[in-house]
């Protein structure tokens, strides 16, 4: 079996036993990248020379024996191109950051490097993480490895496709309204959005600061837990980072869901959800039931407002965050700069793509004098109602299960002319970001050859229960082991 097709925990064993070297592993990954990348388009930037150098350093030092626990030392990882990497171009898939080379690392990048993982490159996304398909990237559209005519999902489309196509072993994604879980679902891999505050956002290029969260995209649940052990850490540089102890998530990798109380929100099994998707998810729920979990239908009436609330709050925060791209300190600047105002107008006109402009417009309008109370304040109040609705539900159930997406991957070009229909593909993932709670997507079936994802939603900071449920499901099924015929 090719090394690049294995999971991190399998490779970690081989590295530790000196059965393989880091260099062999990195070479296998780049061999695959060189073979399939012309079709997949998952990466904006590749860092092969740096990766080979790092692999050699690790091979020459080799202190594995000193480290008894499972280690991700020497494991290749792809980094979404909205996380700052010192000395390596970070574009956010935007023209406005075309030549931007950050002077520092995002905290997650430092953590990954300290743990000895080897970055292979920066993955494509929808510009500034705004989108559900990577079609909003200023550079390229990533293809779904299961069907090259379909989108990989987004915004972490490059991150999910690179894992599914075995171009990397691990990936870092970010999730503002579903941007880890939706592409993980479309590409048949595992993706976790941690609790807001669990992972540092320092150095993650901001989209909507009250919703953004970094998390792992991996080949299986064990890998996601191992990577979370590295990422979940308090960071004084992010004032929203939670100052609470970091648990050992591998302790949650046990086959046991006996007595687990599962709620199925009927609002996410009704109209607008494809019949085949519903069927796969219900079959997954039956497996949990068979293993002793208790399943019941629940109702979250406030969910029907989640999408509208999200499309006020996210653009409002984005319009404020993106004000920093002014052509002065870094990034692209227009040549048309007769005076300062003309320079601002032209820099932003030339630098941003249509979806980013659209969201800046929505956000600016919603925050403008006279509309603030009607839109932004109203949305923030309904957000409280959604949170309270969820808190009440979690008094009754331990986790909720839903389809991650209403349909399997859609076609490239299918939704680009209708922004609202594109927004609707995030209907099951958005409430989770609004409430700041964690959720994981794991493969649970196929619809006409395309992967289907099961979303498991948990209580704040209870990623452990998500890992336990997901691990149990994975032990009973082999959906996560299937590979696209590339």
């Amino acid at each position, binding site marked *: 079996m090719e090394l690049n097709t294995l999971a991190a925990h399998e490779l970690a064993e081989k590295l530790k036993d000196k059965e393989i070297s880091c260099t062999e592993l990195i070479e296998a990954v780049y061999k695959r990248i060189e073979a399939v990348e012309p079709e997949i388009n998952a990466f904006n930037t590749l860092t092969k020379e740096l990766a080979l150098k790092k692999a050699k350093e690790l091979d020459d030092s080799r202190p594995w024996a000193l480290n008894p626990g499972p280690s991700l030392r020497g494991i290749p990882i792809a980094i979404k191109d909205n996380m700052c990497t010192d000395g390596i171009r970070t574009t956010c898939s935007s023209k406005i950051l075309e030549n931007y080379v950050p*002077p520092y690392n995002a905290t997650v990048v430092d953590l990954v490097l300290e743990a000895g993982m080897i970055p292979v490159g920066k993955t494509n996304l929808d510009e500034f993480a705004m989108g559900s398909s990577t079609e909003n990237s200023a550079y390229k559209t990533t293809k779904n490895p299961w069907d090259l005519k379909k989108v990989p999902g987004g915004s972490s489309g490059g991150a999910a496709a690179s894992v599914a196509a075995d171009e990397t072993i691990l990936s870092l994604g970010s999730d503002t309204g579903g941007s880890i879980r939706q592409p993980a679902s479309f590409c048949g891999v595992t993706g976790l959005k941690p609790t807001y505050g669990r992972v540092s956002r320092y150095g993650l290029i901001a989209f909507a600061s009250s919703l953004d969260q970094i998390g792992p995209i991996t080949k299986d649940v064990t890998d996601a837990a191992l990577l979370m052990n590295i990422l979940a850490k308090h960071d004084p540089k992010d004032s929203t980072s939670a100052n609470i102890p970091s648990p050992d998530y591998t302790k949650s990798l046990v086959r046991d869901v006996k007595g687990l109380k599962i709620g199925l929100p009927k609002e996410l099994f009704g109209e607008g959800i494809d019949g085949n998707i519903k069927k796969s998810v219900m079959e997954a729920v039956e497996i949990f039931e068979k293993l002793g979990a208790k399943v019941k239908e629940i109702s979250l009436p406030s969910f029907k407002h989640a999408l509208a609330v999200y499309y006020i709050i996210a653009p409002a925060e984005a319009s404020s965050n993106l004000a920093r791209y002014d052509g002065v300190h870094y990034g692209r600047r227009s040549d048309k700069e007769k005076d300062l105002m003309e320079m601002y107008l032209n820099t932003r006109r030339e630098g941003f793509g249509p979806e980013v402009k659209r969201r800046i417009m929505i956000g600016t309008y919603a925050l403008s004098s006279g509309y603030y109370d009607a839109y932004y304040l109203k949305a923030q109040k309904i957000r409280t109602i959604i949170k309270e609705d969820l808190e009440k539900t979690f008094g009754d159930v331990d986790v909720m299960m839903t389809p991650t997406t209403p349909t399997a991957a859609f076609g490239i070009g299918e939704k680009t002319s209708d922004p609202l229909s594109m927004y609707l593909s995030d209907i099951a993932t958005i409430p989770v970001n609004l409430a700041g709670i964690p959720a994981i997507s794991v493969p649970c079936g196929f619809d006409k050859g395309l992967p289907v994802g099961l979303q498991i939603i948990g209580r704040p900071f209870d990623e452990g229960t998500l890992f336990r449920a997901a691990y149990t499901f994975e032990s009973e099924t082999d959906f996560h082991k299937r590979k696209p015929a590339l």
Partner: protein
Amino acid sequence: MAVTKKDTEYAASLARLGLSEEEKELFTGQLNDILGYIDAINSVDTKDVLPAVFYGPGGAKAFSTPMREDAAVPFKEPKKILGAAPRLEDNMFRVPKILDPEE
């Protein structure tokens, strides 16, 4: 409430975003579509509800932002920061003229 082309132009000027005539038309239409969808939230009763900005992660009420100690940490390589600037002169960020000397 319908968004007019004038509203679009006003929001674009607040956002310092230059728009072409076609973009103004397009965004006026799309803003109306999207805000039309969003307007449904007006039916929700939010009397006595606190905006969600007052809740920290985990649902706890948080009325203040955690602060770290106000201690300066020198950045080791300021050249890297300056090097990212699109126009630099004598280690300063160069901007186009702000005031018109004629005025």
